């Protein structure tokens, strides 16, 4: 009897350690290798760890306090809803401030080389400030450092660079917060043991890779029975996203209960794929997207939760931060910054400014947003 118990215990222990071993070894494709920090399963907020300022500083920047400044905004790419919304926020803030001359320009494809060239040209043309959303955190760093070395104020939003290549970064939502919102909503819709797949941009895009890594960690911690099937790349391309989502639906059949869209392009395309496959209601779509793109699917009841922050606010905050930096009001070591109608925003992670908690759009509230 005793022996049996010990043996059973031993087998369980071995099985358990093997399984945890497997769980450790299995990381979701598309995540990055950086350490993760999953939030608590309930809504306990994470304690903010104090960290010294780790951003860069422009050399010999002229005194710009209160003076009119020329600013260029270079997003990952232009001509998509999401960055149209951020540049609207930037323009709104510039209008409110009254002493900023801002324009948005950038590549028509999310291409790191073109983005670098754009920034390089604007450095030559002699702007006072650069706002950017990086296509690659490391590749963009040399050209941003060059901007700093010419005394230009550099502030990032949406997608970060290495910290020392810019002064501040406006963080739209912490990665673990977004990951929690996505996974929790998916679990609510497909149940604790449902299987899902992910449609992302590319495996190396910094934001998406970070979210996926955090989602993997959070799901492992709080929803361990959910089954991740596959992550597919779809650039930020409409047609490709639709095709990839359709392929997933056909490949996994009834096993597939949910799709995550990791970009503002992939989510509506996935919803469209589910609609066209006649799987509304049997395959849940949860993802990051702008409300306008998702309204048709949310209204039809095909999509229940869309997770995002307000990109107009994000652009707005970035512009205010840049102005505060140029004026010398936001210095290393500050703990908060005033951002117009958004009020006081908190400084986190040394040199980042947090926009707020992620926002979940549902059938009840989506009508109130237009971007």
């Amino acid at each position, binding site marked *: 009897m005793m022996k049996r118990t010990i043996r059973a215990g031993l087998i369980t222990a071995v099985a358990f350690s093997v399984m945890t071993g497997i769980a450790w070894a299995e990381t979701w*494709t598309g995540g990055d290798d950086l350490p993760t920090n999953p939030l608590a399963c309930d809504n306990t907020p994470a304690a903010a760890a104090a960290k010294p300022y780790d951003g860069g500083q422009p050399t010999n920047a002229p005194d710009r306090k209160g003076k009119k400044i020329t600013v260029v905004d270079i997003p990952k790419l232009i001509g998509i809803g999401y960055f149209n919304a951020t540049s609207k926020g930037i323009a709104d803030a510039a209008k409110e401030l009254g002493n900023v001359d801002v324009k948005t320009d950038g590549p*028509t494809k999310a291409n*790191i080389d073109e983005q670098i*060239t754009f920034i390089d040209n604007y450095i030559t043309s002699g702007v006072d400030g650069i706002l950017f959303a990086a296509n*690659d955190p*490391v590749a963009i*760093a040399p050209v941003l450092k060059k901007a700093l070395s010419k005394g230009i104020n550099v502030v990032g939003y949406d997608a970060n660079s290495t910290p020392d290549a810019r002064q501040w970064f406006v963080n739209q939502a912490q990665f673990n917060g977004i990951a929690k919102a996505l996974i929790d909503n998916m679990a609510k819709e497909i149940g604790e043991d449902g299987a899902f797949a992910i449609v992302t941009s590319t495996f*190396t895009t910094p934001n998406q890779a970070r979210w996926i890594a955090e989602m993997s960690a959070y799901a492992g911690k709080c929803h361990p029975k959910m089954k991740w099937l596959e992550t597919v790349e779809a650039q930020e391309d409409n047609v490709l996203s639709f095709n990839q989502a359709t392929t997933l639906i056909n490949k996994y059949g009834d096993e597939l209960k949910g799709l995550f869209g990791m970009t503002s392009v992939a989510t509506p395309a996935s919803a469209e794929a589910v609609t066209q496959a006649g799987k509304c209601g049997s395959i849940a779509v949860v993802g990051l997207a702008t409300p306008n793109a998702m309204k048709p699917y949310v209204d039809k009841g095909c999509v229940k939760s869309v997770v995002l922050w307000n990109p107009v606010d994000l652009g707005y905050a970035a512009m205010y931060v840049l102005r505060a930096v140029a004026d010398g009001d936001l210095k290393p070591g500050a703990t908060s910054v005033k951002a117009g109608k958004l009020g006081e925003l908190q400084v986190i992670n040394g040199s980042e400014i947090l926009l707020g908690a992620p926002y979940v759009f549902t059938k009840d509230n989506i009508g109130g947003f237009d971007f």
Partner: protein
Amino acid sequence: MSRYLLRHEAILAALLVLALIVLALQSDRFFTIDNLLNQGRLMAEVGLVALAMTFVIVSAGIDLSVGSILGLVAILLGVFWQKVGLPLPIAMALGVVVGALAGLFNGIIITRFRVPPLIATLATLALYRGLAEGISQARSVRGYPDWFFVLGQGEMLGVPTQLWIFLACAVVAAIVLGMSTFGRATYATGANAVAARFSGIPVDRTILLIYTASGLISGLAAVIFVSRVSTTRSDMGTGLELDVITAVVLGGTSIFGGRGTIIGTLLGLVLMQALKNGLALAGVKGDGTIVVIGVILIATIIISNLVRRDVDG
């Protein structure tokens, strides 16, 4: 030949001078040494590949796989160095060798299996990019030592390092294409492959060498590119082939083969880069710049064709 030189290249040179003057008037920051050298830095990778592409197109071929070779070599450079643990100089050399092999493979498909270059390199465009994505496992390689950045971010005698490399390669390419037996074999192959074969010109060997060189130089461009942006990604060089072919065709090389010069390609390159940079400095947005480049490409070729018809007619 010299009469032809007077035509397209002269028109292009005039256009370039005109463009430079107009752009300089639009922005006082355009015609500064700093900006021009910086543009040279940005142009070097496309420029290097365009030199080889001139040979390819003169031989009546096309190489669409150059951007994918660049991506593949970039990834392999990182993998050889970080994952395999080879010293970086050896990893760089091996990367360039792989580029050459990738080009050689293109050449073998084209000469041995008689696959049209467009189809062959369209296939390897997908193949090499797929390999790059697969090998990289979607991870970037970063953290190169500082000396490596000299190649892409440093300068020698005040001129960007890669511009020296590019100029050296351009001189070699101009001499080989314009003055050597190999250059004449390239023109003959492109003008009429059958006639060239009957004249005892080693057509297949010429084509093999050209595609190998195209791969090799794409590999070299990859090393410079990685050094310039200090990271490797599997999507590097996407769409590079289009910029390269645009520069070569703008430079007067006939897409049907048998015609074209390195000088023309250089003029085409500089014109394209000057427009991209100058228009940006003049406040034209990115989408507007692409439109202008498209219009200029069509206009130059039409003008050149009209003039040629007059002279020939």
